[in-house]
């Protein structure tokens, strides 16, 4: 009896092994067809191969739509060629492996890198279910995890739970048949395995990174690719950027009252920094923009970074200017003189860009603009 059973076990094991070999063979074939570097390819496990295949197919379908509708590619002139006086061979993606195309592709890849690095972010294509169909390869610079590790996974696995609703909201609108041209902008927190030194740890010790996502919907009717959201995702750094003279920085307590302000504000808005201390930003903006500022404030409270839209700030003595603020919550540098010592002092840092000139300079709209306000 036992011998019989043993025999059967051996047979079944052999059969299973054979089956697996066949399967592995197919997986290997599949992975060879994917545009991956050899080192990456050998590291892939089976689910990853499928994920990447899915992405490949989807992107292909998505881009086919692209090319059908746009005839512009025939005129492309690369910047490098402008300098060198040459011209690029038009690469519509259909060419075979000719030498010229390869060279052009080399340069084109440099140009693409240029695009991405100028933008200081990475590209994400989201399906209506939240699958990250495509991510540009510089995603590793921002998230630590590489393109091949992430592509095909669902964004909900990598973002902060509190942001899921907002993401879902943005995705839902898309599937309701909203056409191309609908733009989206939102802030979310995503996992990042980057350490302080820029190295990558494992997923267990990931931290949250705040990303500002902007983009638009791309509707595609092909069955193999539904509508997608094309997004550029940028971290919100307040990095070493040269600030123009039409920008000022300010620090606020968490309720958005000014605690400190850059001298430049006098030139731009007329108030002296001292006059602004303790004033709420809500007093200084146009009433119709209250919603915009509230959203910004809420984003700051929950996600610690935010980009306001455009809003109007009232100028001292009359009129207003259009501005946009990029803000972040940071630990307060100054020694806290507040009586609330129990919690860690945080403050809000805003970099405000002035977008327009002073409009309607003779118009006094608010009490806060009047000179009398500051006499006491």
């Amino acid at each position, binding site marked *: 009896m036992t011998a019989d059973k043993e025999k059967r*076990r051996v047979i*079944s094991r052999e059969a*299973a*092994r054979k*089956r697996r070999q066949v399967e592995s063979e197919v*997986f290997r074939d599949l992975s*060879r067809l994917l*545009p991956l570097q050899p080192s990456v390819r*050998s590291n*892939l496990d*089976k*689910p*990853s191969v*499928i994920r990447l*295949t899915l992405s490949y*197919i989807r*992107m292909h379908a998505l*881009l086919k739509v692209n090319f059908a509708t746009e005839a*512009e590619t025939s005129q492309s002139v690369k*910047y490098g060629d402008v*300098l*060198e006086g040459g011209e690029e061979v038009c690469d519509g993606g*259909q060419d075979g492996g000719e030498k010229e195309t390869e060279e052009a*592709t*080399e340069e084109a890849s440099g140009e693409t890198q240029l*695009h991405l690095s100028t933008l*200081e972010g990475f*590209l994400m294509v989201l399906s209506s279910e939240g699958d990250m169909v*495509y991510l540009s390869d510089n995603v590793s610079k921002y998230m630590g995890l590489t393109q*091949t*590790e992430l592509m095909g996974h669902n964004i909900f696995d990598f973002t902060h739970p509190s942001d899921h609703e907002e993401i879902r909201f943005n995705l839902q609108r898309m599937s309701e048949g909203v056409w191309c041209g609908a733009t*989206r902008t939102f802030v979310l927190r995503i996992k990042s395995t980057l350490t302080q030194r820029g190295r990558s740890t494992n997923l267990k010790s990931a931290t949250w990174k705040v990303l500002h996502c*902007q*983009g*638009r919907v791309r509707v595609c009717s092909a069955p*193999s690719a539904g509508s997608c959201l*094309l997004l550029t995702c940028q971290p919100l750094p*307040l*990095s*070493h950027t*040269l*600030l123009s*003279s*039409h920008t000022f920085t300010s620090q606020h307590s968490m309720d958005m009252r000014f605690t400190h302000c850059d001298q430049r504000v006098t030139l731009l808005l007329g108030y002296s920094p001292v006059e602004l201390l303790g004033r*709420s930003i809500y*007093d200084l903006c146009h*009433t*119709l*923009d*209250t919603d915009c500022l*509230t959203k910004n404030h809420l984003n700051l409270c929950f996600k610690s970074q935010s980009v306001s839209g455009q809003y109007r700030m009232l100028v001292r003595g009359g009129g207003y200017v*259009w501005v*946009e603020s990029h803000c972040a919550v940071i630990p307060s*540098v100054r020694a806290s003189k507040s009586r609330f010592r129990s919690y860690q002092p945080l403050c809000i840092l805003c970099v405000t860009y002035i*977008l327009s000139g002073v409009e309607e300079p003779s*118009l*006094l*709209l608010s*009490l*806060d603009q009047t000179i009398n306000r500051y006499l006491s």
Partner: protein
Amino acid sequence: MSARNASAGGGDRAGGGEPAEDLLVEENQSSSMSLSSLMSASSAAGVSLSMEMPRKRKGSIDIQDSKSASIPDADMEDDDNGSDGDDQHVKMKCIREPHSQIEKRRRDKMNILIDKLSAMIPTCNPMSRKLDKLTVLRMAVQHLKSLKGSASSFSEANYKPSFLPNEELKHLVLKAADGFLFVVGCDRGKIVFVSESVTKILNYSRAELIGQSLFDYIHPKDMGKVKEQLSASELYPRERLIDAKTGLQVQAYLPVGGARLCSGARRSFFCRMKYNKVSIKVEEKEFQASSSKKKESQKYCTVHCTGYMRSWPTSQLGAEGEGEADKQDSSDFSCLVAVGRIHSHSSPQANGEVRVKPTEFITRYAMDGKFTFVDQRATTFLGYLPQELLGTSCYEYFHQDDLPHLADRHRKVLRSKEKIDTNCYKFKTKCGSFVTLQSQWFSFVNPWTKEVEYIVSTNTVISQASRSGNKSEQSCKTSDDGKKSLPIIPGISATPGSMIYAGSIGTQIANELLDFNRMNSSPSSGNASPFSLPQDKSPQTHNQNSNNVPNGEAADMEIAGKSSPEDEPQGAAFSGGETLMGENSQMDLDSVVGPGLSSLSNDEAAMAVIMSLLESDTNLGEAVDFEDMRWSL
């Protein structure tokens, strides 16, 4: 059992189809390839990490021995290897979790992926029955081959493949960003390169733009800003940079041109760029040239430019030879490489205008009803310039008959998060006549402190100021009088003198709120009156409701769900000893009370009391009800 196993092509896709032993065999393939793919790249393929769990099952030991974990293809042999590092991680942690559960999860994941794949592949779709795993995979291979067409396989070592062809990726980036890439020289702003997408955005063709000066396309007032961002001049020896960690400005004392122009120095600015409204035709160009001189026909849009500086040695430049003009041994050609993005999605000016109809205007009140913001449209309807209204109390302009109703609304809005509508009411214009308005109020609450910052009012003009018969004239007269008997507003002491009276209504209402908050935050003082001082000083004490919050609130609380009976203020509100604390669900203000009111309203309130004290001696006005005077001390 054997029958199932014998089916060669049959996939082991279905969850329960496998005999237990096969499961074991598969599990024991230890190479944690999936995990290593999520860890740093240094972990080599096939290294078996110490996460292998000792399996103590019968009959499996020999299997374990025979398989070596370091076969490079081990990953391929294992069907149901965990896909995520998380999965493996879970496996590590929860040793007690049955393997079957883990395996089931893996299988489910794999099945989901296979399903997705079959949905994607055109040849799989029409199949009515569900295809097995292997078939789907084979079809996928076929499909990919067909997609690539005659393109070379991606197996050349020297070829650096990217997932998307670069051309496409480039376009995709710009499409997502709604922007265009441009390169301008620093010295004269010459546009050296601009991407095709600019046509969609600014409606100028590439040919038109390349070679032109960027400054021709920028709003005159922004030229200085852009020049500054491009320039290398000595005017800005110290850069204003922001330190990413502290967020403070850092003065960087670098040699001029050092950091500014070195590759990588970032720039970010907004500027207004011209855009072309009509399509470009040769004949029309001349018209455009002349019409563009007029400012009003020129449209601008706000563009956010982010990028960095770059310089190339002039030697590379060949025929184009940019750089310092006329100099041979010139320095590098420096330029700005940036992406310009249109800012149309953020709430633009148009939005605000659209929301408010032509017969509407917006005002903002402080908590006590003083105007702190007046939309310029108000002037058309009310006759006053904004600055004439600012700082004055809205109650000074309301018609007497409407005061009770509006006071009640005022109270309500301070306590509610919703938008409150008023009925139609009359507002006094500059010339003395009245316009009929209807307003929608809501109190704006600071998201952080949850305190009311101010009240926003959207006012709709119902009818223009008209001298509609005797009634209005009479009311005009009476409001000038100041000595007529004033309507009793619940909770407000009727001090004589209409101006003060009007002003004090608002402040009293605001004070009520503050005090209510204070009482809310200190529940122990529920019954006792927290306002010791005024109680003692008040010479007259008529009302027996001294222990409660001002009576006016009683009406408020009750009406929480009811339709508003606010038109009948007299008598309705003075409900005896009703306790009001803690019942109202509308009370959604936190107990954090800050000094929200400006000191102005306190002064006003004090002044009102003094006046009333003075006048009460001479018995000019109605009986003063000091119980209801509250102010913060």
